[in-house]
């Protein structure tokens, strides 16, 4: 019994000895304490941002789902101030605001602590539709590699990448660069109505040597954003959306897209403006494969939709009223150089804003030259609340080779028709497609049937393009009486 007692005690002592000094089994994941690590990351980022006397340049893609990228130029100083410019808006002058580097949830964060319109305009524009954040004031520091600093915008998953500007004079060169890229962006959508055609199409062609993929592009200049759609040989369509930033790469005008287009092993991200062409052609080259964004001329539709026997081309009238909306095929050149010019002419006659365009109705007739083929134009008189109507006469319409021809012959004869004839001449010219003795002297008007439009009954929806100035196209409807 005594031995057993001794054995138990010896065992207890051994157990106590082994267990009382338990080895610290926690692993030392971090060498430094949390506060040391925080300070280290903040210090690292602060050192990086202050390392460049002439600041940084970079592109911020706020949200790859809805908006493209903006060029930013920033110069940070020790006293927590930062000079910023960007090419988001036309005003590229530098703002001087404050920043700070703080501890975020998981990493250091760069915060623009006071308002700079270059940053806040993005948020404000994003608010317009309540649907998407376009920008932020807080950026999580992701890391630095070869001088390139990457931040993440946690709220909208945006990416902001900056690198040393390489400028000799930040204040002068940053504004110059922002102006350059802003103008490049505007040029991408500026069209010369004298030479532009509504049958031009923005496309992207990817040529990998063994395979060619063609994308039809749709570009939204407000969001700097592309929708791309392609159809393969089997007729299967695929689409991809990407944001763009008009930028400078090694001093050359360029287009950077996000996300990149991946084809096989190639990733197309940076497109350089081809200066040897007059048009906006941007080319990306990766491993010998190319991706080219450009505008090409498509052949115009046949025009076989037009038929004087179809009842719609009768007295019911072809109505264009902008307030009805639903006319995306109406070209900007038509809106600006025809409708806009008429309103400018009215302003010159009666004072700014007195008369505003309300609608026009073309009553087509193919049998009579007695002004049955007639254009009615109406303006709102904002001083009296009245609707002013004026009428103009055309010879009967003639259809030759699926094109419409008709001669403008003069006013309906009311004093107001005569008074305002000069002011509405842009629209009269649009529908004037001369023909003499059955021989046209121009290219005529092209009609396309765009389906039906329901408005208290089905209306035929169609477009007319003046083929002598193919940048002018209007989309309207034949209304049921």
């Amino acid at each position: 019994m005594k031995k057993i007692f001794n054995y138990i005690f010896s065992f207890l002592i051994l157990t106590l000895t082994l267990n009382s000094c338990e080895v610290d089994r926690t692993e030392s994941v971090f060498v430094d304490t949390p506060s040391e690590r925080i300070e280290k990351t903040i210090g690292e980022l602060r050192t990086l941002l202050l390392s460049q006397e002439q600041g940084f340049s970079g592109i911020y893609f706020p949200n790859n789902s809805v908006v493209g990228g903006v060029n930013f130029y920033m110069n940070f100083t020790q006293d927590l101030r930062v000079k910023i410019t960007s090419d988001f808006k036309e005003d590229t002058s530098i703002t001087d605001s404050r920043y700070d580097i703080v501890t975020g949830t998981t990493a250091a964060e760069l915060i623009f602590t006071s308002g700079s319109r270059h940053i806040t305009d993005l948020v404000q524009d994003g608010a317009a539709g309540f649907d998407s954040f376009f920008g932020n004031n807080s950026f999580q520091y992701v890391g630095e590699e070869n001088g390139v600093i990457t931040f993440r915008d946690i709220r909208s998953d945006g990416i902001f990448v900056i690198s040393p500007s390489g400028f000799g004079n930040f204040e002068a060169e940053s504004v110059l660069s922002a102006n350059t890229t802003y103008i490049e962006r505007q040029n991408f959508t500026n069209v010369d109505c004298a030479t532009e055609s509504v049958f031009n199409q923005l496309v992207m062609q990817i040529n990998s040597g063994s395979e060619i993929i063609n994308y039809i592009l749709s570009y939204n200049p407000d969001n700097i954003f592309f929708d791309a759609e392609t159809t393969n040989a089997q007729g299967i369509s695929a689409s991809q959306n990407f944001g763009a930033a008009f930028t400078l790469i090694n001093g050359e005008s360029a287009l950077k897209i996000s996300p990149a287009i991946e084809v096989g092993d190639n990733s197309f991200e940076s497109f350089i403006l081809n200066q040897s062409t007059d048009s906006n052609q941007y080319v990306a080259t990766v491993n010998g494969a190319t991706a080219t964004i450009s505008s090409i001329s498509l052949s115009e539709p046949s025009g076989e939709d037009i038929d004087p026997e179809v009842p719609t081309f009768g007295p019911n009238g072809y109505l264009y009223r902008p307030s009805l909306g639903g006319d995306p095929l109406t070209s900007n050149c038509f809106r600006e150089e025809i409708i806009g010019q008429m309103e400018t002419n009215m302003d010159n006659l009666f004072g700014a804003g007195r008369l505003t365009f309300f609608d026009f109705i073309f009553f087509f007739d193919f049998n009579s030259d007695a002004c049955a083929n007639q254009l009615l134009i109406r303006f709102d008189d904002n001083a009296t609340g009245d609707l002013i109507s004026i009428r103009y006469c055309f010879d009967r319409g003639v259809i030759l080779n699926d094109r419409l021809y008709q001669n403008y012959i003069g006013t309906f004869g009311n004093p107001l028709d005569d008074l305002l004839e000069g002011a509405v001449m842009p629209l009269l010219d649009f529908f004037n497609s001369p023909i003499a003795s059955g021989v046209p002297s121009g290219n005529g008007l092209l009609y396309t049937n765009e389906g039906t439009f329901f408005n208290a009954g089905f209306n035929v929806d169609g477009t007319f393009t003046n083929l002598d100035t193919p940048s002018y196209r209007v989309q309207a409807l034949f209304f049921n009486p």
Partner: protein
Amino acid sequence: MKNIKNIALINFMIAIILFTSCSDNSDTIGPSQIDTNTPILSELDIWLRNNFVEPYNIEVSYLWGGSNFDIARFLYPMREEGVRRWSETINKTWIEPYNALGGADFIAKITPRQLVYSGGFNYNPNSPTITLGIAEAGTRITFFNLDFLDYSDVNSISRPLQTLHHEYGHILNQTIPFSDNFGLITPADYTAQWFNLSNQEALDLGFITPYASSQEGEDFVEILATMLTNSKEDFDDIVSNASPSGQAFIRQKQEIVLSYFQDNFNINLFELQELTHQALLNSLD
């Protein structure tokens, strides 16, 4: 006896082992690693300290700190160049008039401890409205869309000042509640769908603004704020546009607001109205 010796020996050994085996080799506590340095103060920060923190114990927070704002809203910091002028406007149109009539330390005693400035609009999701300001727990008033102030337009400036007087009214009410009789004047017409009312409809129902119809607490401070951002004549003009019953209701409510200030703070609200409105006009370009 031998057993007792053995037990004593064993206990002694255990004690030795226990006391010596676990030596405390932890480091002594070092200095704090938290950065307690004074933050970098700009000229503006120093001005705000001298004009708000020291005399009134009010912090003006214009720098972006995520915790002050709902990150799900389209908000952003105010531009620095507008901070001082807006702060001066607040001083002239709110602090000085109250102190002039309520005593030199009126605002210092009953005050929000933090004024927060935001540049962007506070759009309300799923509602066609924006929030102009928020008062929280009687300690903080947040102003929104301050980047869009236009000092050439009295309405542009009176709108956020109405927010200030409105929210400060809440703070006063949290200090001293107003009479329950106030809520008995138009009890059936308070509605959560206040934003569907036009100004005229609200007036005809006996509310000085549509928002006043949201609940009696808002009703009280909307009368106060409308008075303090309009001249007496302008306020009377607004009331005169209401239906006869609406006018009567608004006047009954106004009487309670007047008595509340007179009885609790010895402030003649008409005198305060004169001072605040004149200060508003003086603040314009």
